[in-house]
């Protein structure tokens, strides 16, 4: 039986194994037999044993014990054994294996072999797995083979030289002269290899690049010959003469013409000729045209040629072949920043590609569409993009959503349109938007004060329809809390009127609070919004709200529990402060948004002087522990300072003094210094406008847990009458986490 059948027999046996276990058994037996055979002396079947091992290796089983056998077979004088040995070397040995060094000598000998087939085996293996060491050793041999010998060997030697240059770039100098000479070859195989070698040399060495620029006319001549030549049975593929060689020459021309006017001029005509004469009905022609376009866009070509290139890409966009549409969009993406207007002309086709079946094409179309959005086409583009968002595959949703937000921010024609767009995105793809979307949207809404009524109506409708999209629900709750009064009013000029009662709103908020779909952050928003509805301007009725809030006083979530307890406290002990606390939030500025870790300062804030909305919000509730008696020795004035929220002060705003206590002629003022990072310096100034002195004045302060307090010594403890002197005390507050406390605190 001929040995080769044994290999095929083994393959048949392995394939007929019914289970994985059975296959493993067969293979283990075979490997054992092969191992035994390897240990024996030469029995004429060595190559077949190695071939069997290579098959087993391809199935994924270990075959490292075959490495030495490869080395032995390569050294064999028999051609068939050498051949399998070299194949084994390419499959089992790579430069990381120690055994690979052992074949260097064999390769060296074989490179000088009398038979060109043996030489070719050695060349092929060296080019496949030659390590840097081996390359250094054998480079002179390769150089010799580049000059002498037949085309068969020359073309292989050239590609071997390419591998050597990639591994050991310094050896490039060795091959430069030979490479230059090879351009004169007529044989396409050798020429092709030569072009690749020159490309590698030019990419790695700037001087070589300059040197080879002189070869541009020669390359142009070769290329022209290819383009104008007629049919040749050897090289023609689908009407194109040797597309492989054409593409490589174009790529080399690209490298040579980059950033160089002379070289670019020399190839201008040729590129125009290729662009117009190449038939792109089949892939081969399209490949050549594609490479031409890439070259034109990369070199310093004249504008007519660039327009021609972009038009070719436009034509590709209309091609039936999906591959060609895909690569045209890839190329357009590369040039959209430099040739924006040219690409804009094809916007319609690109937008149509958004509806293509193929996910890769859709992705490319999305990126291009986002790059093409401008102030002029924003409305129509956004319509298309929003349509795309509702039908796009899930992996593209978040990219599309953030792209739409960016575009809307840069080019939105009106605030209402902007808000509408963001709402639309939240309704369609709410789960995939980034975290900053919620505070960004809230900031946008507060800034569009004339749209508050419209916004809250829309949000209420959306909330009632669907509470599963968390960002949408959070924004809706916040708005209802702030602008619920316009909702109750019922009519709004920009949208249909809707009759909403207080109970309806509370129903909606309660649904959010109780739904298992709501995240803790969302519940926090809803709770605060519920609380805000008790504010007098909202005409909120306390009873139902109070009962809703107090339920959460025993909630498992610590944040919600804290809020509920504090809100309850607002109802009980601090009812007189409730109105002030639940005032409308001031207009927020972008910089202040960024400082709060992407969370908005929700909840109630005492509205300070309207001209200075950016001061740190402070709640001061004067509660004298004992009355300050006129004329008597003083008592302690106990000031309960609640430091609320840390909205970082805008440094350009001058700190103002806030009067926090004004009773019986004693006036206490608080003024804040410019904040440094997380700390604030507050100066308390006490003046006495009454007719009597106040003595034993002490100030005590309490702050929430996450704020550190340091009180410096006061300047004195008695306040003389009639404002003749003041007492000052400095207090340092440090909020290391820059997060507001839980009291009607920051949401999320």
């Amino acid at each position: 039986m001929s040995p080769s059948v044994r290999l095929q027999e083994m393959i048949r046996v392995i394939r007929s194994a019914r289970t994985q276990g059975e296959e493993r058994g067969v293979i283990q037996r075979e490997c054992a037999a092969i191992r035994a055979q390897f240990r024996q002396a030469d029995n004429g079947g060595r190559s077949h044993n190695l071939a069997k091992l290579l098959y087993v290796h391809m199935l994924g089983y270990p075959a490292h014990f075959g490495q030495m056998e490869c080395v032995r077979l390569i050294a064999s004088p028999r051609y068939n054994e050498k051949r399998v040995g070299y194949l084994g070397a390419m499959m089992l040995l790579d430069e990381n294996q120690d055994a690979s060094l052992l074949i260097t000598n064999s390769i060296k000998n074989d490179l000088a072999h009398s038979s060109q087939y043996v030489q070719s085996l050695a060349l092929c293996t060296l080019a496949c797995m030659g390590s840097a060491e081996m390359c250094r050793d054998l480079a002179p041999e390769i150089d010799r083979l580049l000059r002498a010998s037949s085309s068969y060997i020359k073309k292989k030697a050239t590609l071997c030289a390419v591998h050597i240059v990639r591994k050991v770039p310094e050896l490039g100098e060795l091959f430069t002269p030979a490479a230059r000479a090879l351009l004169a070859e007529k044989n396409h195989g050798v020429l092709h290899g030569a072009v690749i070698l020159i490309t590698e040399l030019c990419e790695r060495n700037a001087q070589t690049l300059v040197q080879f620029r002189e070869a541009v006319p020669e390359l142009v001549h070769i290329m022209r010959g290819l383009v104008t030549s007629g049919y040749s049975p050897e090289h023609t593929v689908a009407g194109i003469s040797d597309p492989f060689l054409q593409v490589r020459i174009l790529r080399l021309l690209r490298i040579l013409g980059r950033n160089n006017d002379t070289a670019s001029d020399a190839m201008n005509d040729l590129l125009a000729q290729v662009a117009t004469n190449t038939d792109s009905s089949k892939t081969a022609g399209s490949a050549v045209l594609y490479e031409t376009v890439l070259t034109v866009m990369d070199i310093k070509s004249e504008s007519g040629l660039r327009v021609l290139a972009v038009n070719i890409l436009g034509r590709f966009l209309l091609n039936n072949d999906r591959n060609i549409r895909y690569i045209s969009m890839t190329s357009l993406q590369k040039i959209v920043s430099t040739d924006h207007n040219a690409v804009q002309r094809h916007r319609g086709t690109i937008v149509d590609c958004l509806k293509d079946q193929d996910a890769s094409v859709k992705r490319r179309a999305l990126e291009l569409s986002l790059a093409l959005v401008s102030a002029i086409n924003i409305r129509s583009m956004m319509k298309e993009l929003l349509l795309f968002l509702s039908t796009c595959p899930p992996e593209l949703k978040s990219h599309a959503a953030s792209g739409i937000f960016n575009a809307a921010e840069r080019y939105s024609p009106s605030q209402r349109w902007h808000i509408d767009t963001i709402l639309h995105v939240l309704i369609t793809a709410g789960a995939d938007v980034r975290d900053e979307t919620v505070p960004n949207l809230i900031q946008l809404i507060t800034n569009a004060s004339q749209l508050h009524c419209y916004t809250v109506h829309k949000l209420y409708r959306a909330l009632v329809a669907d509470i599963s999209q968390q960002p949408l629900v959070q924004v809706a709750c916040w708005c209802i809390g702030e602008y619920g009064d316009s909702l109750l009013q019922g009519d709004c000029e920009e949208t249909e009127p809707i009759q909403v009662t207080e109970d309806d709103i509370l129903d909606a908020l309660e649904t959010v609070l109780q739904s298992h779909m709501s995240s803790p952050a969302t519940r926090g928003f809803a709770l605060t919004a519920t609380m805000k509805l008790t504010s007098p301007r909202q005409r909120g009725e306390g009873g139902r709200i109070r009962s809703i809030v107090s339920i959460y006083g025993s909630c498992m979530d610590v944040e919600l529990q804290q809020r509920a307890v504090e809100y309850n406290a607002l109802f009980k002990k601090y009812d007189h402060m409730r109105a002030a606390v639940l005032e409308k939030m001031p207009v927020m500025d972008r910089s202040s948004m960024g400082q709060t870790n992407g969370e908005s300062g929700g909840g109630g804030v005492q509205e300070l002087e309207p001209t200075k909305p950016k001061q740190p919000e402070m709640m001061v509730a004067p509660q004298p522990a004992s009355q300050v008696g006129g004329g008597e020795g003083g008592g302690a004035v106990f000031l309960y300072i609640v430091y609320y929220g840390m909205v970082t002060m805008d440094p350009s705003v001058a700190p103002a003094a806030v009067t926090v206590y004004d009773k019986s002629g004693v006036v206490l003022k608080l003024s804040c210094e410019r904040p440094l990072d997380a700390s604030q310096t507050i100066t308390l100034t006490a003046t006495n406008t009454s007719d009597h002195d106040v003595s034993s004045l002490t100030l005590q302060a309490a702050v929430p847990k996450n704020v550190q307090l340091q009180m410096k010594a006061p300047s004195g403890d008695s306040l003389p009458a009639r404002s003749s002197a003041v007492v000052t005390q400095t207090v340092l507050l440090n909020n290391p986490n820059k997060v507001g406390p839980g009291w009607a605190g920051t949401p999320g």
Partner: protein
Amino acid sequence: MHFLLLFSRQGRLRLQKWFTPTPEREKKKIIRDMTAMVLARKPKTCNFLHWMDLKVVYKRYASLFFCLAIDDQENELLALEILHRYVELLDKYFGNVCELDIIFNFEKAYFILDEFLIGGEVQETSKQTVARCIERLSSLRNSCRRLRL
């Protein structure tokens, strides 16, 4: 070119050629990833994928998937032509090639590939020349075997 893989519709590997040194474990991982990615593609989609920083060009011929990974600067459409040329060469040699031919004669498939590509580049652009070489080598192999050389 970084690697060329041939695998069946069930994900069984039929040929692997690596043009860059890769550790054994990584090769296995790449093969797993490639087969998973390519087999998951729907029929009417384009033949190009992105994987890590490489472009993957694949084409299905009968029951075999031919998969080629190329650099960012290389021409994808030309890579499709390269795959097609290899299939044509296999077809010329085996005569109406099918997957079984490649399974039972895998070493010959490698020899044919080595006459067409070297070091990740095309060595001969003429289909006839490569086919002639392969024939010559095949007869050389047979005569060597007869003469025990």
